[in-house]
């Protein structure tokens, strides 16, 4: 009888144990790139990022993607020019991948190795610092990706024959919601 009970328990419990996956969904985001030029300081902002994280066996894989053309710098002509120099017609998405331990959400800071696909190139950034604050099921993450134009083989655009700086830091502010 005991053996039957144990067997029944195992039959019921094993599928449940196998489904320990949880997932994170990006609920809000603000991504801002900054371009420096002696005459202009430009920020391009996008709220159009979508993201998902899938956790399994203590490890979470995250995928975040945002259309290149969703960045708005306040001038449609500049945005189209940016779309051209970043080869956004051919490569319309910025795709970011990272993998983190599931318990990373318990700490106040995260050091993430991230892979960014942009302009037909892939760049990897090691140990990028993000600050994390938790509010219930939500986790707010903010940090800056130290991107440069040369990382993605982008010719620096110029205004009045003066090229913009190579550094284009991308400020990331995201709210993730945990779903079982």
């Amino acid at each position, binding site marked *: 009888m005991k053996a039957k009970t144990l067997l029944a328990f195992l039959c019921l419990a094993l599928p449940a144990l196998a489904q320990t996956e949880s997932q994170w969904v990006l609920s809000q985001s603000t991504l801002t790139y900054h371009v420096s030029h002696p005459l202009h300081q430009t920020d391009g902002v996008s709220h159009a990022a979508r993201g998902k994280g899938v956790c399994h066996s203590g490890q979470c894989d995250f*995928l975040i993607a945002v*259309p290149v053309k969703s960045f708005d*710098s306040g*001038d449609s002509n500049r945005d189209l020019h940016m779309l051209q120099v970043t080869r956004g017609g051919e490569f*319309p998405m910025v795709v970011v991948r990272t993998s983190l331990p599931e318990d990373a959400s318990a700490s106040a800071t995260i050091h993430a190795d991230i892979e960014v696909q942009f302009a037909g190139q892939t760049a990897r950034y090691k140990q990028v610092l993000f600050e994390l604050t938790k509010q219930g099921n939500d986790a707010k993450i903010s940090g800056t990706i130290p991107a440069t134009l040369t990382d993605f083989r982008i010719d620096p655009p110029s205004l009045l024959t003066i090229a913009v700086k190579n550094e284009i830091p991308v400020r990331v502010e995201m709210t993730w919601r945990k779903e079982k």
Partner: protein
Amino acid sequence: MRMRAKKLVTGLGISMLLLCLSTPLRAQVTATLAGTVTNQSGASVSNAKISVKNLATGQSVKTQSDSAGLYHVPNLVPGDYEVSVSAEGFPTSTAKVTITQESNQTLNLTLGGVLSLGDLGFSPAQTQGSAQDQARLDKRSHMLKLHQRIGLIATAPIVASVITGTFAGGRSTSSTDRWTHLALGSAAGDLYFLSAYYAIRAPKIQGTETHGPIRLHKILAWIHGPGMIMTPILGAIAFDQKSNGEKVHGIAKAHGPVAIVTAAAYGAAILSVSIKW
């Protein structure tokens, strides 16, 4: 005994010669690595970037998959290689392969990852770009750069013709003043319309709403554009009247004011896209 030694030396010499000749021939043996790039559902992936790295020399050869997902890398010397493949929306996948002396070797590559762009709700139309879209953007930027450069060059004869206009339109003007003004005005007009041609003919990008300083730049074109048509017409009438010894009269009197408004709108149009508001 000496004969045997001589034969041995000759044999060795021939063997060495054959070895020397055969080594370059052996070094030229290369193989082609080819295959198909697919995603996890088996669909072919075009424009995937494939890098084939010789692990002994560290040298890499790069190629891209075609529209059917096919790729091929010729002229690989035998050895161990690391093949990495990446594509828009997929993480980089790597595989090891040993190239032998067979002329053709197949290595099918599968792009994977726990999550794909489809999982985020993006449609293929959103995630897949095209060379045509990029070519359209490239052409637009190229034409607008020409518009900008020629437009900036046109500033010089526009300013000069406004200045010389004050001499050409006065009471005691000479025909030289008028001709100088006419020449500068013509140069300004030619450059202006050439610049305008590139702005008007630059490809439009669908789904883009004009906003920001470029909006003001375009609105000002509705002032300096008609002005650049009216100014030479009125100028020609004024030129004839002056050449006939008459005082500028009638509609021709508007030549100066129209030219000044046109030049001011033109200057404001340049500033609208040069200075951050």
